[in-house]
Structures are given as structure tokens and as C-alpha cells.
């Protein structure tokens, strides 16, 4: 009964979504306030109905209702409780329902928090959100219904894919979707502005908090996913340039560019056309990512099921929304007035350069991801575009971009003084060069790592020195006052830039990692970087829905044991699949990482042992970036029209 209620709620949500589109849209055209007012309650109610539906599916998973195909295929009565909840989105149907849930949540957030804008803009934006919601709800109901029943119900389910049974995966998809789908808000506002024909600094002020909100969620989601890959897949890789990873990186880069161009538009009314274009692009790339992942065009751990019908349907959604938005853009963008003027050397100029480089990165990722598909479709030739390609072409763009980041921060609006900006960065240059020299002396080659580490340190110091320089001048007490008086968004920028520097330092340090692949004999110790690792014991253990063999390994430094780790090899009975569970200990900012493999008759056990110096900085940097974003979001000047509580209710429906 609860399941049927959920199913019915989903149908009602579709009807509400259609109403949310049609009524306010007509109202805005007729300038009828009563019709436009329909937008807010329908958006909120649509969210409640989708949430009800989502809750019903979660309930079915929690009580292991094996009369549902979706539960049979992805659950098991013995599966731990947390994975019964995360298992809801660990499959195609459920993850699409989560997508629709976040989409309707975004609509509800606009309805609740967007108070300071014209009725017409809000009505049009909510209408767009309603249209998007309707398309996805229709997709779910027609091709991917999670509420499909089966009779007779089997006694037991087939369990969730073992590598998805992980705490990291319990958080990663909701965060990622919040980011992906969060850009739908910006997309809807861009479409609304193009329809209404009014685009000004006030519009930029409306979209900036939403962009930040989506960007923060996406940053955290990508970082979470990358850390999950790092500790689950067993060899410590954290980014594989997999098409599915690229699918999340593309909107992130576009969103980062948008964040910066929206700042220019808000402050100086310039870059309007470009900002609108990026607003459309960010969500279009999210849609493209969804298409790539869900259509079965690509197969990977994320593509839970592939079905040509679904692919065609999503392609239709993709073409309709991206094509529609771009057509609207082409029709209206020419009519937009040219905004504020600025000299090439200025904050605006630097941000234009930032956008140029970010767009080139984004285009490269898009082309690299789609090229093999296109080439095979057109000529039948099969090629692979993997990590070596992306590293080769992106590093030459990304490193100069990193060099430019603090310089842009130092330039003033309208007309800047490059020489003065460089002089203000003197300290950062010096510390960067010294840092690179120190790292080079300590770890040695590769040179790319040394150079990248130097740039990373320069980025951290340069990012933060903006704050210091703005606070300096006068007595110590006065500086504190001045520092405290700086707007939060200034802190946000500096901290986010420093976070990028930390991530870059972590990435640079991967070049200094030590790897040792050995057949370990019991109680003999093997050198891994500055540490020695040895197996103390190997024993079996029974988990709730798996059995495992785990090794207790001691990590020694200078003969003294400083930590023990327990890498394991797990076997999941229901799916007859095994997965390796890495043993990791964080020492300083680096990590010792061990994974065990096959054991041999001679008593040895294959193991991969790693010392990864500074590796945690990759994710710490992402957290710092997100924190910087949150500070900007909390800035009083941006809070108008959006409450800080926005992030809290977002996670509610997952419970």
C-alpha cells in the first residue's frame, strides 16, 4: 500500500509539474498576477509529492519488500541498514528518482527563498523548473519505474553491487546531484531572463548564490567520489579520466567559470551575454553527463543498466532543453546591451582570461570524452582517449591558469596596474620558489612535481596575501580591525584560491609517491618510503553480508611500530563478487596505503604497498575550496534573496 501511494504520488507530482510550467508561464505572458502566483505553491507541493514517492521507495528498501523488482535487484535482507538507504540511489531507477527529487527541491528552494525579485522573473524561472521536472518525471514513469512489482515475490534479493556498499557512496551521489541539478536553478533563471528580456546586475545577484550553492555541492561531491575511488579500487588512484568522472568535471569547470563571470556582471554589468551562456552551459553539461551515464552509451560502474529506450528518451530531453535554451540565447543575446567598459589589464580583464582558460579546459574535456563515440559512429574507427591524453593537454592550460589566479585577485576593477600587482605578490613568488627548491631537494624528480609544488605554494601564499595586504597599513590593532571589516566574500575568494593551491600541492606530490608490489612473507618487513611494513597475522572474519580475510600489518619507522592497518579481501556471497578493502593510515599529511591480493602456496601473500606523501591535501584542498565558497555564500551582500539554511533541508529527504 505504501508503495502504491509512492507510485501515485509520483504521477501526481508529474501533473503538478505540468501545472507549475503552464499556469505561471501563461500568467507571465498575460501579466496576470494571480496566475503567476500559482508558481510558488505548486513548486513546493510538487517537491512534497516527489519526496513522498522517494520516501515510499526508501521504505520498500528498508523493509526488504521483495515484491518490487528494484528491491530484488539491488537489496538483500542481510544488507546493513545504511546501505539499504543508500541502495535506493545505487541503481538506475532510484538514482533517477533522486535526480527528480533534487530537481523539485531546487524548485521549492526558489519558491521559498527568492523573495526579492520581480514576480515575472520568478514565475518564468519556476515554470522552467516545472518543465524540467515534468520531463524527468515522465522519463521515470515511462521507462524507469522503480515501483514495478513482481509476483510471486522471491525470498531473497540479489544484493547491491559490493563496490557500492561503502559509506563514501552513501554521501557521494546526493552531493553530486545537488551540484548537478543545482545548476538547473541558474539554467531556469537564464531562460527566464531571456524570455523576459531583462538582464542586469540584479539578475546576476539573484543567480550568484545559487551558482555558489551548486558549485559547493559539486566540489564536495566530486572530492567525495574521488576519495571513494582512491580507497575502494585498491591501487590508490583517485582520478581516472573516466567518461563518467568527466561528466561531473565538465559542469564543475563551467560552474567555476560562471562563478567568476557572474561576479563581473554583478559588479560591473559587463560580460552579460557570456554569463547567460555559461548559465545555460553549466546545466547543459550536467544533462550531457546524465545522458552519457544513463543511456548506456558508456558502460562503467555508474551505468547501472543500459537500455536503448532510456537512451533515446534522455537524448530527447537533452536536445529539447539544450537546443531550446541555445535557440533562445541566439534569438535574444544580440539584443542585450553592452555593459560596463574596462581596460584589458583589470580585474575584469583577468576574469575574462580566467574564463577563456577554463572554457578551453572544459572544451578539451568535452571533446576528449565525446571524440571516441563520435569517431566510432562516423568512421567505425575505435580509439581510446585516456589519462595520458588529458594529462598531456590539460596541464599546459591549468598551470598558467594557476599562475594567473593570485594576479587577478590583486588587480583593481576597471583599470589595473600589472606591475603593482606583481610587486604585491613578491612574497608569494619568493615563498613559491623556495618551496619548490625545498621539495626538489627533499624528494627530487620529477620536475613537473617540483614546478607544480612551487606554483601550488605560490597560490596558497598569493591567495592569502591579498587578505594580509588589505588589512595592513597602520598599527597591529588597526590591521585586525581592518581584517575583521573585510567582506566575507573577500575571505571566501582568498580561502577558495588557497584551497585550489592545496589540492594542486597534493596532486604534485603524487609524483613523489613510493610503490612496492611484493609477495609478502609473514613477519618480514618491507621498505616503503620512510616506513617499513610487515604482516603480523592473517585471519578470516564474517561481516553481515560478506566474509573477508584480513591481514594485520604493522607500519614501522626506525624499528618502532607507529600504526597498524588492516587491508582485507572481501567476498560477497549474494553476488559472488569480491572486492579489496584497502588498509590506510594517515601519517602527517601523507598516507600509507596497503591492499592485499592473492595468497600463494608458499605462504606469501601478494600486496601492494604505497607511501603517498601529502596525498590528503588533494581532498583537504577541496574541502577548503568548498569552505571558501560557503563563506562567500554567507556574505551579507549575497544573502539577500537566499537564506543560509538552503543547504540544510537539501539533505533531508535522504533519511
Amino acid at each position, binding site marked *: 500500500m505504501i508503495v502504491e501511494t509512492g507510485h501515485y504520488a509520483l504521477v501526481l507530482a508529474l501533473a503538478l509539474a505540468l501545472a507549475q510550467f503552464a499556469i505561471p508561464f501563461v500568467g507571465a505572458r498575460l501579466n496576470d498576477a494571480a496566475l503567476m502566483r500559482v508558481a510558488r505553491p505548486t513548486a513546493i507541493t510538487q517537491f512534497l509529492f516527489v519526496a513522498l514517492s522517494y520516501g515510499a521507495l526508501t521504505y520498500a528498501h528498508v523493509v526488504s519488500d521483495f515484491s518490487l523488482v528494484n528491491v530484488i535487484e539491488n537489496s538483500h535482507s542481510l544488507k546493513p541498514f545504511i546501505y539499504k538507504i543508500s541502495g535506493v540511489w545505487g541503481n538506475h531507477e532510484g538514482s533517477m528518482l533522486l535526480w527528480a527529487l533534487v530537481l523539485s527541491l531546487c524548485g521549492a528552494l526558489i519558491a521559498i527563498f527568492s523573495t526579492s525579485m520581480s514576480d515575472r522573473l520568478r514565475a518564468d524561472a519556476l515554470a522552467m523548473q516545472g518543465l524540467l521536472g515534468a520531463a524527468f518525471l515522465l522519463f521515470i514513469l515511462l521507462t524507469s519505474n522503480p515501483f514495478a512489482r513482481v509476483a510471486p515475490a522471491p525470498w531473497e534479493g540479489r544484493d547491491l553491487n559490493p563496490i557500492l556498499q561503502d559509506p563514501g557512496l552513501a554521501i557521494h551521489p546526493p552531493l553530486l546531484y545537488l551540484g548537478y541539478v543545482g545548476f538547473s536553478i541558474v539554467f531556469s533563471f537564464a531562460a527566464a531572463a531571456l524570455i523576459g528580456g531583462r538582464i542586469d546586475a540584479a539578475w546576476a545577484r539573484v543567480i550568484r548564490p545559487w551558482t555558489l550553492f551548486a558549485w559547493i555541492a559539486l566540489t564536495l561531491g566530486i572530492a567525495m567520489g574521488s576519495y571513494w575511488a582512491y580507497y575502494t579500487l585498491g591501487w590508490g588512484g583517485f582520478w*581516472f579520466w573516466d567518461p563518467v568522472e568527466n561528466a561531473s568535471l565538465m559542469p564543475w569547470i563551467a560552474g567555476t567559470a560562471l562563478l567568476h563571470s557572474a561576479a563581473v556582471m554583478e559588479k560591473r554589468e559587463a560580460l552579460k551575454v557570456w554569463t547567460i551562456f555559461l548559465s545555460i552551459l553549466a546545466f547543459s553539461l550536467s544533462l550531457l553527463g546524465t545522458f552519457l551515464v544513463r543511456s548506456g552509451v558508456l558502460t562503467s560502474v555508474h551505468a547501472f543498466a543500459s537500455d536503448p529506450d532510456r537512451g533515446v528518451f534522455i537524448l530527447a530531453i537533452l536536445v529539447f532543453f539544450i537546443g531550446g535554451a541555445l535557440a533562445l540565447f541566439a534569438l535574444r543575446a544580440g539584443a542585450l546591451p553592452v555593459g560596463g567598459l574596462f581596460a584589458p589589464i583589470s580585474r575584469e580583464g583577468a576574469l575574462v582570461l580566467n574564463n577563456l582558460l577554463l572554457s578551453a579546459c572544459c572544451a578539451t574535456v568535452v571533446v576528449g570524452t565525446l571524440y571516441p563515440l563520435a569517431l566510432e559512429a562516423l568512421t567505425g574507427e575505435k580509439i581510446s582517449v585516456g589519462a595520458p591524453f588529458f594529462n598531456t593537454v590539460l596541464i599546459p592550460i591549468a598551470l598558467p591558469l594557476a599562475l594567473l589566479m593570485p594576479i587577478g585577485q590583486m588587480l583593481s576593477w576597471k583599470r589595473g596596474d600589472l606591475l603593482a600587482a606583481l610587486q604585491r605578490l613578491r612574497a608569494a613568488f619568493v615563498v613559491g620558489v623556495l618551496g619548490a627548491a625545498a621539495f626538489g631537494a627533499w624528494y627530487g624528480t620529477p620536475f613537473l612535481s617540483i614546478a607544480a609544488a612551487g606554483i601550488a605554494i605560490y597560490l596558497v601564499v598569493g591567495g592569502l596575501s591579498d587578505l594580509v595586504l588589505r588589512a595592513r597599513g597602520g598599527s597591529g590593532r588597526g590591521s585586525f580591525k581592518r581584517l575583521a571589516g573585510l567582506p566575507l566574500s573577500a575571505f571566501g575568494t582568498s580561502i577558495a584560491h588557497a584551497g585550489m593551491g592545496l589540492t594542486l600541492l597534493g596532486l604534485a606530490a603524487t609524483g613523489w609517491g613510493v610503490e612496492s608490489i611484493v609477495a609478502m612473507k609473514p613477519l618480514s618487513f618491507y621498505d616503503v618510503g620512510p616506513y617499513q611494513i610487515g604482516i603480523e597475522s592473517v585471519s578470516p572474519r564474517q561481516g553481515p553480508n560478506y566474509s573477508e580475510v584480513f591481514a594485520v600489518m604493522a607500519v614501522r619507522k626506525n624499528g618502532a611500530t607507529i600504526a597498524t592497518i588492516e587491508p582485507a579481501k572481501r567476498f560477497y556471497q549474494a553476488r559472488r563478487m569480491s572486492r579489496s578493502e584497502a588498509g590506510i593510515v594517515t601519517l602527517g599529511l601523507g598516507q600509507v596505503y596497503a591492499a592485499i591480493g592473492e595468497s600463494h602456496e608458499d*605462504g606469501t601473500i601478494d600486496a601492494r604497498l604505497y607511501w603517498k606523501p601529502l596525498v590528503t591535501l588533494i581532498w583537504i584542498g577541496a574541502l577548503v575550496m568548498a569552505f571558501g565558497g560557503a563563506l562567500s555564500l554567507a556574505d551579507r551582500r549575497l544573502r539577500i534573496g537566499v537564506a543560509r539554511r538552503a543547504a540544510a533541508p537539501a539533505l533531508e529527504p535522504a533519511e
Partner: protein
Amino acid sequence: MNRVSTVETGSRNPLPEGEGGRRRRPGEGHLTQRISRPIVITQAAEGHNGKGATPHPTRLRRATLSPWERGRALILFIALIFFPLAAHAVTPAEMLADPALEARARAITTELRCLVCQNQSIDDSDASLAKDLRVLVREKLKEGMSDAEVREFIHSRYGDFVLLRPPMKPGTALLWSAPLIALLAGAAAVWMAARRRAGLAAAPAKALSEEERARLKALGVSDQDRSES
């Protein structure tokens, strides 16, 4: 206790360690590999059963199995009976003794795609085909081929698809030049926008229409006031 087990394994396998593992990896192509797997399992199962049936002189000295021994027995049981296909990317057994040669092999294998996997290099992959290719690369290196020759050897056998770094050729020209094209196109767009902006700034302001003049007059501002300020 641990030393006992090492002695024991030593006596069972007279080959120096490292050699023993490599010996059972002929790497003749994945079909042979697949067929040979069940044989490996049987051997293991025999060894496992044989433990209790025919006592070995060294084993008589111990009353009970150590945790290590029990664990090992279970690992063998699970690893070889339950998931015989769960190999591990690059295993110690297949590595070359010469560290320099091995480093070259790793550099090559990280850029070769595992053909039956999803966007994984053969260096990262558990698949048996990936293992065969890893072994093949190492054999060719041992035969004295240069890195480029090994790459070319694999490329000629498996085609472009095996290379994670796509080859430069007419079909991939657009791919490799994508970043440059994006940068140039973007720069051109920026330049054109800047010119348009500069043109607008340089052009004299349009004269006010009659209607606008009238409105200004109504507000109490004359045309001259405006142009002076």
C-alpha cells in the same frame, strides 16, 4: 613458528622465490590462461587436502596451527575455490627482477588499455587479458626491444584502441588540436567583443531625439547642462 612455515614452504618449492610464481605464467594469450585456471585450482585443492592426509615430517612437530596457518588455509580456500578469477593488477610474480626494466615496463603498461575493461589501463586491471598483455610487454622488453618497439608491437596487434594516448593521425587531428582551437576561438571572441566595446565607447553619443529633449526639459535639465557635466 613463522620460521617453521617458511622452511616448510621452502622445502616444497625448491625454486628461489619470485621464480616460482613466474614459472606458471606462460602468457600465451588469454585462451590458454582460461583453460589452465581450473588446473591451478585442482592443484591447490590437492595441496589443501593433502595437508591432513599425509603428514609431513616438519608438520609433526606442531600440535596446532598458528593463526597465520589457519588464515592462510582459509585464504587459499576462499581465494582459489570461491573466486578463482579474482586476480590482482600487477602481481609480484610477473614483475621483472631488473628494477630499471620493470620501471620501463610499468611506464608502458600504464598507457595501454585493457581491451575488455572500461577505461582501465592494463597496469590497473585485474582481467586475465590485461595480465597476458603485461607479461607480453615484459617478455618483449627482456628480449631487448626498445620502449617504442614494444608499443609498436602491441599497437600493430591490437590497433589504436589499445593506446590510451591516441596516436596522432588525420582521424585524431581534431582531438589533439581541440585545446588550441578552443583557446584561439575564445581569444578571437574576446578580441571581437573588446573591439565592439571600444567602438561603442569611441563613437560620439547619439544626439537626443525631440521626445527625449522634451522629457529632459520637463525634468528641469537643459541639454547644455548634461553635456557639461
